[in-house]
């Protein structure tokens, strides 16, 4: 986060460009309150006419010190922090954190909990992609798409609210399984939604895919070579739109993803339009996964059997002394996690989400680092927009699908 209005490297450039001696340059300060930066991103754009000469992203306006906060929470409490990192994909973060700690603990998760997790994370992906599509289209001028997308998103948020009591900060995936069993009637509601959802995706496509304005604004815009992307740390749908078939769900399967049948969509055009196509296809694939998870939902417990980690059932707590003692121990001091370190990667809607957790054997983490996809992707902004027109900057940064909470942590 920078307080100075113009960073030194831009200022030096400006001094060189004296009036009359060279091209007239202008610095445009976009953000941190600009609507199309989706949060509090600040871009310092140096312009020559309408062409971007230099772009310096400035982040940190939403830095809340979450990584520090982790060090004073016990492992289960810290689940609530992970929601607030990427607030459009809270359950992906819940899952990444839980998987990392479970790896440290060596905890076995029963199949029903795993299937539920897959279902919830894919619903989260739909949620996140819908917000992306709506706002991205809104930036480019297709306002009605936003209303369509938010209609479906509202239904997903209601589904979330139904089982967790919260629309956004669900904290539903916990270490050892889930917070609660889903309520009665929940599956029917998801099923009803999933029955109509594919036709809704067709609706979005009707509005955009062959729309000449949309094509004109997005085709051949925001291109960046695959080598540059890998070098700069871009992950997720952006890489897949450049033709690289990379997806942690396939490459390093977690939570039984290897048992589900789905495709990893790729395109080779590597522009804003290709990223749109990849994300639309991902929504279809996510619907497939949710349907499979619902149809093949195994019977059995929804939390792990380790009484040192998982809270006992209410019933047992009231009838068994031992269960009550474990409950007291877990609630008051948390559970101890063996010494060690892990780096757990999952495929969040935005790309590679990694949790690096270091444990010193106590009940609070020693150090947690989140490798968030938005931070990695945003770093490539300069490379992507330098040399293009100012109007295309909006389309380009929209296609990155970053969340500033995820960037600044």
């Amino acid at each position, binding site marked *: 986060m920078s307080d100075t209005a113009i960073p030194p490297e831009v200022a030096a450039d400006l001094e060189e460009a004296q009036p009359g001696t060279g091209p007239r340059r202008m610095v445009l300060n976009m953000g941190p309150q600009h609507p199309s930066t989706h949060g509090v991103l600040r871009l310092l754009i140096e312009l020559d006419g309408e062409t971007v000469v230099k772009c310096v992203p400035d982040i940190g306006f939403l*830095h809340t010190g979450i990584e520090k906060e982790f060090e*004073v929470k016990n492992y289960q409490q810290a689940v609530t922090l992970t929601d607030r990192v990427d607030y459009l994909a809270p359950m992906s973060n819940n899952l990444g954190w839980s998987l990392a700690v479970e790896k440290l603990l060596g905890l076995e998760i029963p199949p029903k909990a795993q299937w539920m997790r897959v279902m919830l994370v894919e619903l989260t992906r739909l949620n996140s992609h819908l917000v992306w599509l709506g706002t991205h289209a809104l930036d480019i001028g297709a306002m009605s798409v936003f209303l369509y997308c938010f209609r479906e998103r509202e239904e997903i948020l209601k589904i979330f609210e139904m089982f967790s009591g919260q629309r956004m900060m669900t904290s539903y995936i916990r270490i050892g399984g889930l917070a609660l069993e889903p309520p009665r009637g929940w599956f029917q509601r998801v099923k009803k939604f999933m029955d109509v959802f594919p036709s809704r995706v067709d609706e979005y496509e009707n509005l955009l895919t062959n729309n000449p304005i949309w094509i004109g604004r997005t085709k051949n815009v925001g291109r960046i070579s695959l080598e540059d992307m*890998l070098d700069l740390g871009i992950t997720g749908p952006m890489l897949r739109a450049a033709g690289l078939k990379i997806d942690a769900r396939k490459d390093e399967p977690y939570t039984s993803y290897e048992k589900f049948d789905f495709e990893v969509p790729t395109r080779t055009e590597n522009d804003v339009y290709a990223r749109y196509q990849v994300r639309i296809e991902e929504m279809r694939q996510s619907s497939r996964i949710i349907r499979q998870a619902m149809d093949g939902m195994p019977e059995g417990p929804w939390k792990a059997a380790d009484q040192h980690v998982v809270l006992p059932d209410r019933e047992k707590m009231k009838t068994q002394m031992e269960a009550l003692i474990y409950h007291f121990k877990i609630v008051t001091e948390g559970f101890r996690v063996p010494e060690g*370190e892990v780096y757990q990667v999952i495929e969040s809607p935005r790309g590679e989400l990694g949790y690096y957790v270091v444990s010193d054997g106590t009940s609070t983490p020693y150090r947690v680092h989140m490798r968030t996809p938005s931070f990695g992707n945003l770093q490539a902004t300069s490379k992507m927009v330098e040399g293009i027109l100012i109007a295309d900057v909006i389309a380009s940064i929209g296609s990155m699908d970053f969340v500033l909470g995820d960037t600044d942590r």
Partner: protein
Amino acid sequence: MVRIGPHQPEVSSDFEMLPDNLRERAVAAAVEAFDADAVTGGKFDRGELTLEITPAKIASVCGFLKYDQQFVRLSTVTAVDRYPMEPRFEIVYHVHSVERKERVRLKCRLAGSSPRIESVTGVWRGANWYEREVFDLFGIEFTGHPDLRRILMPDDWEGFPLRKDYPVTGSRV
């Protein structure tokens, strides 16, 4: 809260070479063959390979991994503060090979007084922001970094928030 405990680092630095059981790992063996002095230790724990690297050799080892071993991606750079133990800081690099579907963790230990290490921005340009973040929150200097300034905290901020001797709560006086 400053946690001062008897906790030892998981990898003992008694031996100054690659442990024998890691030689069967292709990457570990390759790095040792490339520069035997660079590797001071390592472990294979919970399915993850960690190699300890001499801080002075980090950039050359990273270059070798990227250009010779297909580790084209740098996932992240971060640090761990082991205060009050010495060497105090661990700089942790996670590198990823898309082709081999493999990940390796590299670790360098740095002393607590004026910690500094060579930047790997020359190998992966993406290291830029990650190193700035470590500089910002831990106060570790990266030599050869093109643009080393604070990234998340305000420019005039004093102190380094993620160090263990920096309080979690309280007001600035």
